[in-house]
């Protein structure tokens, strides 16, 4: 433990392009890019499926299927088929991030109080307006929940990117592993890297929790918690998106 902590707090390891802060930024960069792209695809898709009720098999099927897909396999295969670089990594991460956002958006739209939607229809609003002006805002808590789950998922999986020679926090684990347990840059580096990864994940989760609370309009805040009470006969909530890494 001492050696891990001393590696962690060694000043050398906090400076330069291979230092801890640089790797954290790289890691967050991959994550932000991925979640952005995934959101652009999955939010509209989930909204349309939720609104029209058609294509629900896509939501359930994707969530289940992609949870079973080993990220390491997808990532390395894609790199082998294309090249060593950012694109194959981002593509495989986006694939991983789609299910939670899709599920969250879908569930959010479906859970909008039907009477509200009815009232909107009664007022003569067009379907697309109902979707954008009524359902989406009401679905916001669950959509944000999906985005949150996706972000955590990607942060965890981006650790693997180091195996295909990208940067990010996985770099410390992979390099440390190759340096051998005994060496000062071996296990201590691995453990230090692991600690930073864990702390980053927890900090981001905490920040996103606060963002979610703040971003949801007060009228909706109670709705989110009320709907989460598990009733035995209902299917699992979007919370159960499962870990892929």
């Amino acid at each position, binding site marked *: 433990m001492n050696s891990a902590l001393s590696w962690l707090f060694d000043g050398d390891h906090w400076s330069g392009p291979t230092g801890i802060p640089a790797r954290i930024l790289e890691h967050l960069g991959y994550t932000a890019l991925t979640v952005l792209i995934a959101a652009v695809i999955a939010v509209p898709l989930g909204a349309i499926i939720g609104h029209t009720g058609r294509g629900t098999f896509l939501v359930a099927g994707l969530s289940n299927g992609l949870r079973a897909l080993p990220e390491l396999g997808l990532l390395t295969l894609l790199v082998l088929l294309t090249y060593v670089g950012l694109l194959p990594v981002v593509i495989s991460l986006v694939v991983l991030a789609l299910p939670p956002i899709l599920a969250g958006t879908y569930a959010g739209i479906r859970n909008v109080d039907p009477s509200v939607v009815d009232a909107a229809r009664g007022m003569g609003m067009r379907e697309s307006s109902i979707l954008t002006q009524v359902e989406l805002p009401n679905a916001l808590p669950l959509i944000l929940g999906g985005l949150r789950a996706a972000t955590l998922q990607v942060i965890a999986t981006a650790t*693997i990117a180091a195996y295909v020679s990208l940067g990010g926090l996985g770099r410390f684990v992979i390099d440390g592993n190759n340096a051998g347990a005994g060496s000062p840059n071996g296990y201590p580096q691995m453990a230090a890297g692991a600690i930073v990864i864990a702390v980053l994940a927890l900090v981001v989760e905490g920040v996103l929790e606060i963002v979610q609370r703040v971003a949801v309009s007060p009228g909706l805040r109670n709705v989110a918690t009320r709907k989460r009470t598990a009733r035995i006969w209902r299917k699992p909530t979007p919370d159960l998106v499962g870990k892929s890494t």
Partner: protein
Amino acid sequence: MNVDWPWPWLGRNLDKIAEATGEHLFLALLPVLVGLVVSLPLGWAASRWPAVRLVLVPLAGVLYTIPSLALITLVPLIMGTKIIDPLNVQVPLAIYTIALLVRSVTDALLAVPGDVLAAANAVGFRPTKRFVAVELPLAIPVIVAGLRVATVSAMSLTSVGALIGIGGLGSLITEGFKRNNAVEMVVAIALILVIALVIDALLLFVGRMITPWTRARQGASK
């Protein structure tokens, strides 16, 4: 450089694939089983005593958030295992399973309707019997749902262990990667995927079989 697609490789290496699969199942499923067994009493305690719930649920959330590569790397530090030790993968998987299932068990037990409990008491069930004969069966659908997620995730998470040398089908992926053998990689990925989905379906089926009252209810409400 072209990627090699040696399909004959598959036929020639069936025993290697079988061995890796067996190892993978050992690494992935045993911890889920252990996790399930541990989650039941923990979840029960959390459903019964709010103080326990206040500690366990956030703790579960925290543990679940920690990325697997981090936990797998830290197990030798915490438990003194060697770097290449199946426990390094199995312990984190058990932790994730417990973190996931404790929530499921707690929620499920808390959701048992009060009048059902009252009826059980009226009939004369003592607390233990009531738990085993009434609350637990009613909690099964939610627990099975959580178990399915835990198992499928475990199958996929186990491959991460290959990054630091812990085998299973993940080692076929890394070996294929090193030797430009795309077939080996595809086979390993496909096996993980298929086995996970098969187990998922099996669990769903078993869950439905042992809770006939859910089917009756769904039939009625249709």
